[in-house]
């Protein structure tokens, strides 16, 4: 029986790619998956209830009256808390996907199959992404509590969830990049968390330092001279918290590019919304990270002679 003729029809008769199928199957069979979901919901639920309790207590209204501002604050709080949890979860879920296979000594077997490097990398990313999406979607009932109080539009909610998807994709790509390049999962996890920390905290700190330096510079200039555009806004555009806030509060984009002068703030004009700049920059970074991961997964082939 010759079966080689069937080669080249990869996945033609399977609904999804075999690597993705395997990843999802194995992930959903692991008890760790259930516990991850459980503790995530526990954490976000706890934060939501604490926030509701505090806002009600502090306002002294006992929740009897409609207060859109309060509801908005609650939504912002939940949104940022969830962003923090996503940032904590995404590196953990992706930084071991390739190095883990290498450590379990299953990677070589996978690499000798007909699956392309791109298929393996993308399937690994999609599998981790789908689990993260499941977790984030499972928090919707908690968000629905915010709707009880009003003040939030469904459009905002959809945008926030799309932003989560993007940040998961970005951090996931960085996780897979390190997982492919570094032999040990521990090193990969540390590196991914390091980069995540820089993206979240490092960019913000850098922004505030640069803002202080440039503000001092503008103060030293005679009034009416110099630029009215502060370039340090581009630094905070690399920060996910600021980018997400710019979706919720569009005026933020203009504010971060604003120049403070002796006579008070002057006009600030964002070249583009923060979230858009953030997405453009990180789309390029993610694409480069994935491209390198695909190239480094297998030994480099020579050109056909």
């Amino acid at each position: 029986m010759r079966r080689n003729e069937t080669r080249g029809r990869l996945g033609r008769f399977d609904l999804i790619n075999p690597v993705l199928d395997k990843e999802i199957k194995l992930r959903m069979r692991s008890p760790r998956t259930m516990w991850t979901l459980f503790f995530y919901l526990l954490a976000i639920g706890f934060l939501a209830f604490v926030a509701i309790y505090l806002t009600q207590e502090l306002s002294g209204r006992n929740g009897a009256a409609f207060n859109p501002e309060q509801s908005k604050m609650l939504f912002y709080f939940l949104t940022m808390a969830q962003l923090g949890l996503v940032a904590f979860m995404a590196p953990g879920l992706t930084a071991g996907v390739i190095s883990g296979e290498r450590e379990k000594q299953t990677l070589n077997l996978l690499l000798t199959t007909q699956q392309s490097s791109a298929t393996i990398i993308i399937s690994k990313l999609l599998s981790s992404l789908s689990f993260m999406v499941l977790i984030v979607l499972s928090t919707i009932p908690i968000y629905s509590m915010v709707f009880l109080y009003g003040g939030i539009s469904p459009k905002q909610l959809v945008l926030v969830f799309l932003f989560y998807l993007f940040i998961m994709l970005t951090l996931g790509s960085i996780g897979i990049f390190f997982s492919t390049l570094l032999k040990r999962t521990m090193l990969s996890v540390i590196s991914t968390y390091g980069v995540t920390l820089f993206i979240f905290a490092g960019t913000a700190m850098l922004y505030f330092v640069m803002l202080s330096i440039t503000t001092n510079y503008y103060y030293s200039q005679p009034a009416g001279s110099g630029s009215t555009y502060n370039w340090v806004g581009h630094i905070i555009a690399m920060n996910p918290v600021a980018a997400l806030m710019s979706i919720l509060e569009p005026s933020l984009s203009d504010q971060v590019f604003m120049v403070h002068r002796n006579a008070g703030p002057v006009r600030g004009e964002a070249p583009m919304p923060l979230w858009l700049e953030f997405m453009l920059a990180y789309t390029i970074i993610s694409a480069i990270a994935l491209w390198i991961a695909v190239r480094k997964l297998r030994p480099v082939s020579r050109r056909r002679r």
Partner: protein
Amino acid sequence: MNEQTLQEQPMIEIRGLVKQFGSFHALEGIDLTIAKGTVFGFVGPNGAGKSTTMAILATLMAPSSGYAKVDGYDVSVNPHEVRKRIGYMPDFFGVYDQFKTTEYLHFYGASYGIPKAEREVLIPQLLELVNLSDKKDAYVDTLSRGMKQRLCLARCLVHDPELLILDEPASGLDPRARIEMREILKELKAMGKTIIISSHILPELAEMVDEIGVIEHGSMVAVGNVADIQNRLRVKRFLHVRLLGREEEAESFLRDQPYVNRLLRDDKGWQIHFGGHDEEQAMLLESLMAAGFRVVSFSEAQTNLEDVFLEITRGGGGAE
């Protein structure tokens, strides 16, 4: 290429293969040709370069220089074509513990692009071949090491490859599991597969290996069939002699005889590394009789691959 050319084309062609890891030379210019349908035993001490050569053939490592071709396809230029033709079993491998055995094979079958309907027929056959039919619904982590080795062998066969690259497939197996593995390999040989198999199991596989290649310090020191290599060695044969009494005198006598290269004593008599042919062997027996020694047995011991390997790597061979 016409059909005849394809038939004549070697399954493996390696020329000047070099692999460096920094300043360490794992392979130092290997040349090797293996014809289709050959079972090739790859022998060498640990760290000699067997696994590196096999990993290059399996497209898992790029050579530093030289080339390796599988069925005419360069592993560095056409790795995709090479992967279609090989089934690779590394010396150490892991399994996805949360898969059942059939799911495990389905996954690899799908990864090779075999349609589901075809896999449904194929997988029970493969499990039967490796004697795991009764474990088809068992989770992989419940299998013994020997069973996992056999499952991995079934995985190698899922896409019907022409070449099997088996890196120490019997390492860590108990004697019974080794025998089972050997029987399966005999069946694969009968199916016409080209097999390249390394190390430990070789002495047991003497009857099924067509050719051996001995590698040491990244260089091939001998290649050919077992009998050819033996003939080219200084040691032509191993004799076993058992005498009754006068042991000290007999040992001194044997040591002085021509063509006796080495004399090893054991509890049953002497093992002689003998450099002569039939004529000289007969003369040795006559000398013993003439000297009045009482010969209980005088026989030619079967040379096995291990002896050949040890002889070559001891530096006494110089066969190639």
